[in-house]
């Protein structure tokens, strides 16, 4: 075969070894997406087949040689109604099926494990609740729903894992979420699919799916010492949040213990659930979300906390169930022993001005 061309030969070999029509099915949702895909391919093949059949068939049957004189036909309402309604019905099926799938992919289950992702030109930074940081990579266990809470620091990015059939735009200034449950251990592609500037095609990474025990081992081995919540506590103290949000009866800000997930009555009359996006937004735009009964005196922290710092704060407030420690730091006005060695201004996550 080498006689023909070594290049061509190599090409054939590669074709035969690498040929795939589907990416690996590595999440619970992947088979569902593939089912819809196959259905769509099926109706497309049928549709194109019919059109090809008609065109080729009529071309043979009614070519000028065989049928020199055309028979004029005005049209047929019945026929036209048929080929209006059948596609319509098919498309409606596709619509409903697709919508169901969409809501499944974008509505995370309640028990999902939350991992934060920050996108920036041109890298992905993943932050596990335990404080493990990863650049352009993400380690996850199988058999457990994982929710990603994602935000971009600069432009639009898009977090895409083809093997899981999930993708979500990562937007500046707003949390977006996506979830999946991996089924197959292995290493899969992570792409940024939204064009984000010069090194767009270098904004890629590896999704490493581990068996639960291997995942635990990885978590143990790559801890950075402080969890996100612990770091958040430090930022909380460094920015002086505890001066107002301390749960004292005369405090100027609302108590933050157990605030996550609760419904809040705002001064502008709306009732809102305190979720991640809400917590982040109140730190940056406090006067848009003043809780009923409090004065709009909170300053904005826009430009003072990085996206990572905000994630730490959000994670800290999420896990805050009592005000004891806050009051303790307030009373002693001392840096707690755990934090000795770091001065407030150098807390990671805050931005020096």
């Amino acid at each position, binding site marked *: 075969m080498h006689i023909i061309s070594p290049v061509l030969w190599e090409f054939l070999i590669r074709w035969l070894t690498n040929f795939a029509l589907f990416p690996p099915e590595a999440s619970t949702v992947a088979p569902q997406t593939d089912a819809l895909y196959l259905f769509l391919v099926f109706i497309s093949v049928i549709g194109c087949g019919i059109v090809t059949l008609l065109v080729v068939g009529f071309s043979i049957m009614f070519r000028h040689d065989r049928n020199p004189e055309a028979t004029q036909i005005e049209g047929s309402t019945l026929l036209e109604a048929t080929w209006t309604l059948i596609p319509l019905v098919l498309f409606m099926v596709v619509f409903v099926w697709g919508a169901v799938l969409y809501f499944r992919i*974008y*509505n995370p289950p309640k028990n999902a494990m939350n991992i934060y992702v920050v996108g920036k030109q041109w890298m992905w930074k993943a932050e596990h609740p335990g404080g493990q940081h990863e650049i352009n990579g993400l380690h996850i266990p199988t058999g457990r729903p994982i929710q990603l809470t994602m935000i971009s620091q600069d432009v639009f990015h898009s977090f895409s894992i083809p093997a899981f059939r999930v993708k979500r735009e990562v937007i500046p200034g707003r949390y977006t*979420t996506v979830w999946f449950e991996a089924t197959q251990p292995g290493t899969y592609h992570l792409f940024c699919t939204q064009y984000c500037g010069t090194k767009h095609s270098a904004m890629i990474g590896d999704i490493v799916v581990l068996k639960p025990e291997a995942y635990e081992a990885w978590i143990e081995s790559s801890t950075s010492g402080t969890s996100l919540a612990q770091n958040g506590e430090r930022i909380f103290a460094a920015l002086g949040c505890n001066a107002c949000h301390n749960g004292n009866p005369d405090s100027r800000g609302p108590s933050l213990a157990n605030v996550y997930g609760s419904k809040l009555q705002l001064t502008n009359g709306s009732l809102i659930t305190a*979720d991640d996006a809400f917590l982040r937004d109140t730190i940056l735009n406090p006067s848009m979300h003043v809780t009923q009964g409090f004065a709009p005196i909170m300053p904005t922290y826009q430009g003072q906390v990085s996206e990572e710092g905000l994630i730490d704060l959000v994670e800290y407030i999420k896990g805050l169930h009592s005000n004891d420690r806050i009051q303790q730091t307030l009373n002693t006005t001392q840096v707690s022993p755990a934090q000795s060695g770091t001065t407030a201004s150098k807390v990671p996550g805050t931005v020096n001005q």
Partner: protein
Amino acid sequence: MTYLLIFGALLVGTALTVGAAFVDLGHFNPVVAILIACIKAVLVILFFMHVFYSSRLMKLTVAAGFFTFLVLITMTLSDYLSRAWGLW
């Protein structure tokens, strides 16, 4: 003459808008303002711009323009208003 009448009506409309802005009507302040503005615009279109005396085609054209304008506004707002309903 019609033009003078319309001119007067437009001036009255302007005065009304300004006046209404200083009366506290709660949520109805913007509604009133837009309503008056719409009436004024319709008056201008119908009489100053002669649509009232024009053919059906012309009326249809103007209507098509406003229809598309409304499509743009409502379909865009449909996204923004319904963002608060769901998780995102």
